[in-house]
């Protein structure tokens, strides 16, 4: 296993901090957007886009690129922040999020936003698309890897398990699903709305290899991504334990911010809180 140098980890953590600030700013500016579930998956996205994925922001349709699908499409603010920081489009454009005529729609749209592979938003559909891509690469003998980020609430959707069954049956191994296990969904805690445990046993029963990770520990995320690629003989899922609203104390674990943004008067406090974390990196 690779031992990731401290500087690399620190650099990624700083990227995550910047992304969180952009997410808070973007959603408050739009007076809408899913803040909690965007902040919970930032570290995973940073690890993917700034470390793991083979991609080229100046050529979004580069044929040899790896693919990323945001199946939990409501975390679009997180994806947009990461795509902007990667250079897919100017950072200034983030202020147009959810505005009319913007390229940055409320949910990801591949016909509008550079870097978005497939439109998502209706939950439960992204994994199927990702499995289809991985199947395409498999039967054409290409090496591209496919990643899909799923919400834990999204696992209520039956289609997710149809896709899981399909991938193992057809031996589609070039797919890594990441579950943002933030324990929250629209109507409250996942445990209260719809129990999804035991998650590990469920994925294993569907023929997937399962890894677990603390979804906010950058070093652990890099490690688990490395390990997940070793001896790959099954489709693979990484269950990342996360906190909804991670990074802003009064949003953390607060389900009121599932589909909401911070009011303007709280924006500066939140941004300052995030800035304060820089020194601790």
């Amino acid at each position, binding site marked *: 296993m690779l031992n990731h140098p401290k500087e690399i980890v620190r650099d990624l953590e700083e990227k995550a901090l910047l992304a969180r600030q952009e997410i808070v700013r973007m959603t408050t500016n739009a007076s809408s957007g899913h803040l909690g579930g965007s902040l919970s998956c930032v570290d995973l996205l940073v690890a993917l886009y700034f470390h793991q994925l083979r991609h080229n922001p100046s050529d979004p349709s580069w044929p040899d690129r790896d693919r990323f699908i945001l199946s939990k499409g409501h975390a679009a603010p997180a994806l947009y922040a990461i795509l902007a920081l990667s250079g897919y489009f100017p950072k200034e454009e983030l202020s147009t999020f959810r505005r009319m005529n913007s390229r940055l729609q409320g949910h990801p749209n591949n016909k509008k936003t550079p870097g978005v592979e*497939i439109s998502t938003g209706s939950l439960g559909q992204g994994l199927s*698309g990702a499995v*289809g891509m991985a*199947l*395409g690469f498999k039967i054409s003998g290409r090496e591209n890897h496919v990643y899909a980020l799923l919400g834990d609430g999204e696992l209520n959707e039956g289609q997710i398990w149809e896709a899981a069954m399909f991938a193992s049956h057809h031996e589609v191994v070039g797919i890594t699903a990441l579950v943002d296990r933030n324990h929250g969904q629209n109507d409250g805690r996942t445990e209260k709305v719809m129990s999804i445990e035991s998650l590990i046993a469920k994925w294993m029963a569907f023929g997937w290899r399962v890894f677990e990770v603390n979804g906010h520990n950058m070093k652990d995320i890099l490690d688990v991504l490395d390990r997940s690629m070793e001896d790959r003989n099954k489709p693979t899922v990484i269950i990342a334990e996360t906190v909804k609203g991670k990074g802003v104390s009064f949003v953390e674990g607060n389900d009121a911010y599932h589909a909401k943004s911070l009011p303007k008067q709280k924006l500066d406090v939140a941004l300052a809180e995030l800035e304060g974390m820089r020194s601790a990196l």
Partner: protein
Amino acid sequence: MNHLPLVSTRQAFGEELCELGKKIENIVVLNADLSVSTRTSFFAEAFPERFFNAGIAEQNMMGVAAGLSTTGFIPIVSTLAVFAAGRAYDQIRNTICHSALNVKIAGSHSGISMGEDGSSHQSIEDIALMRVIPGMTVLVPADGLETKRALRAAIEHEGPVYMRLGRPEVAAITHRKSSFTLGRAKILRNGNDATIVACGIMVFQALKAADVLKCRGINVRVINMHTVKPLDLEVLSEAAEQTGGIVTAEDHSVIGGLGSAVLEALAWVRTKLPVYQIGIRDTFGESGNPDDLMRKYGLSWENIAKAVEEILSVKGV
């Protein structure tokens, strides 16, 4: 016309798919545990490495097809029309069409003419469901040869296409030398007294009605509207102007299907135009022999002829 060879559109689809598989290497076929019913079994036998059974899971099948289309393949997805357009509607709308992906969907056993399995399996809403989605093309071929040509046109067209197929054997009415252009309707009979606009299995009934009416001295224009979306507005508005009355005929609900599409289009063309719809009148079907069902639910040449005569009386002829 009774001597014409009989073949179902699903059969022609399966045969042509297999033929095209030889020439077009990036065709892949997906099916949801109905490969014999949809005749995709022919392709599966010839090209097992390019055939994927999704099991009884239509929603995932649409998503997998969407993903495959982004990696250089042309996925042809097939299942019964009721499961394709109904069960997987959101996947077709939100993953395939919203992403404008190059996926071809073939819905078989459409309409009440699918017969004995009954109303749970009789798709009388699929034209409506598919044509309402932005960017979707909707094809309803009338016989075997037209199905083969429609499939080729669907594959040549970049973007999502829904093809509506049927279970019963239908008479060959397409001329070998005629051509098929997506979005261009075919005028099968010329006449100026009234127009019948039909699609799918009802084109044969329309021709029969026209022939019978001709013996009574009534010359009816028959239009085969094989592409329900985009609708051929030119042929349609010309027919409205020149014949002054229209009968639409489809094995589908009168709400949202070909008849609705024609009415929507004609609302802009001419006022006070009598239009009569032949189709399923907002009811579910039932089990039975296809021919008996079509008669019981009014999908017959007799009913079309009657509608034409009613239109003539409205016109004051």
